[in-house]
């Protein structure tokens, strides 16, 4: 009698245990390590999913310290427009046009590893990005032997990110930048940088993001313009199909060639640009 009562009471649990046993262990892939394909200025490990088109409008105003006459930078506008598309869930491409050096750019980014838990355990997500940037400015020295390839620079970035918790993600971004043509002979054609990006979720739709690149400037080579390490802080605000990124940064450029290679502003001097990225996603198939 006693036994049968015990058996009755445990029945629900037994049934659940039985089901548990039958259900195969699944692999849970981490999603939304970052909310957008950019941490702030630079790339995040995220890609556009297959069949989705992202129309991005990025905007940086002038320097805040330019004073009231320039309306604290708002009178000046730098824009970068781009169309970006997910060919596969692991592969995205994008093209864009920006005010900075009248750049036309293209890039591809693909996923190498995805952070996961369960049947398959992977501690980090890894993506790789390659971009090419074509300077569209008129030649500053038309007398020189100018070639089209002089206009081009390339960036390659490896992104390694981990979503530590639902609220916190962190990314390291070793980067390599090559410029076919630089300002003077004393400027390096190649630059290496190590980027770090973080996302801290404040509410389910708002997060605080920060991004920093340490640029390894070769000591034996003089740079014609003094460049500083780019730092950007801001917020991701998500509303359905849009992600707004509100940014404070010392970099006016919005692509890797300019961010890493030509950030001439300095935070402590107040060379800060307000800016935003708007991402609008369309489902194409």
């Amino acid at each position, binding site marked *: 009698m006693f*036994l049968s009562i015990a*058996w009755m009471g445990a*029945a*629900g649990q*037994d*049934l*659940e245990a*039985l*089901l*548990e046993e*039958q*259900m*195969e262990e*699944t692999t*849970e892939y981490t*999603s*939304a390590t970052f909310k957008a394909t950019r941490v702030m200025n630079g790339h995040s490990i995220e890609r556009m*999913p*297959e*069949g*989705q088109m992202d129309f991005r409008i990025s905007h940086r105003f002038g320097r805040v310290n330019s004073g009231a006459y320039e309306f604290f930078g708002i009178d000046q506008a730098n824009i970068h427009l781009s169309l970006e598309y997910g060919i596969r*869930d692991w592969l995205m491409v994008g093209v864009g046009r920006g005010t900075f050096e009248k750049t036309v750019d293209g890039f591809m980014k693909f996923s190498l590893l995805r952070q996961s838990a369960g049947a398959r355990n992977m501690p980090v997500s890894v993506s790789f990005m390659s971009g090419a940037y074509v300077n569209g400015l008129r030649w500053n020295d038309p007398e020189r032997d100018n070639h089209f390839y002089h206009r081009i620079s390339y960036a390659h970035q490896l992104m390694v990110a981990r979503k530590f918790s*639902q609220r916190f993600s962190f990314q390291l971004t070793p980067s390599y930048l090559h410029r076919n043509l630089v300002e003077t002979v004393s400027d390096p054609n190649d630059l290496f940088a190590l980027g770090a990006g973080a996302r801290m979720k404040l509410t*389910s*739709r708002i997060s605080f993001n920060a991004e920093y690149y340490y640029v390894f400037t070769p000591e034996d080579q003089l740079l014609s313009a003094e460049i500083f390490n780019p730092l950007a802080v801001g917020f991701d605000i*998500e*509303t*359905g*199909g849009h992600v707004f990124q509100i940014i404070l940064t010392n970099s006016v450029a919005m692509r890797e060639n300019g961010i890493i290679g030509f950030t001439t502003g300095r935070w402590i001097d107040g060379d800060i640009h307000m800016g935003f990225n708007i991402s609008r*996603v369309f*489902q194409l198939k």
Partner: protein
Amino acid sequence: MMIITLSLSGQGKFLTNEGSISFYSHTPIEDITALNNEVGAVIDGEKGEVVIIVQMTRFQFEKKLMQEHFNENYVESEKFPRATFNGKITNHETVDYSSKGIYPVLVEGEMTIHGVTRQVSAEGTLEVTENGVVARTEFTLNPEDYDISIPRVVRGNIAELMLITAELSCQSI
């Protein structure tokens, strides 16, 4: 005693880990559907007990971005990876598991979604087939009941009530 118990429990149980549950939200602006084909369910034919386990990340949406929002902002799948139902077929004595046919059933029990447990009931049918049973049901669910809040900006895109449709083809074990 142990042996008898085991042999008893082996009788009249039906199980699947490929059941399907979908939900549908209709508004004049947008229709949203998502389908999960990896639902685990077990029905005890003797006692009429039912256990269902739904892995939230397995809901497939047409728009991937929506799927991400669903998991990240609405049901918070990392925190609450599963929805479960644990209940009973209240009129289970009317079901004859040995003769094929469709039997109307009423199911009552505890449903847990987003960490919130509620007492629920739904009508459905149980079809006895050659090698198992197929449980079907359709009911509506209000996300607010499970503390899933919908922000005002998308209020017009998401229906107040979700239509849930389930089809669980369980094999006899």
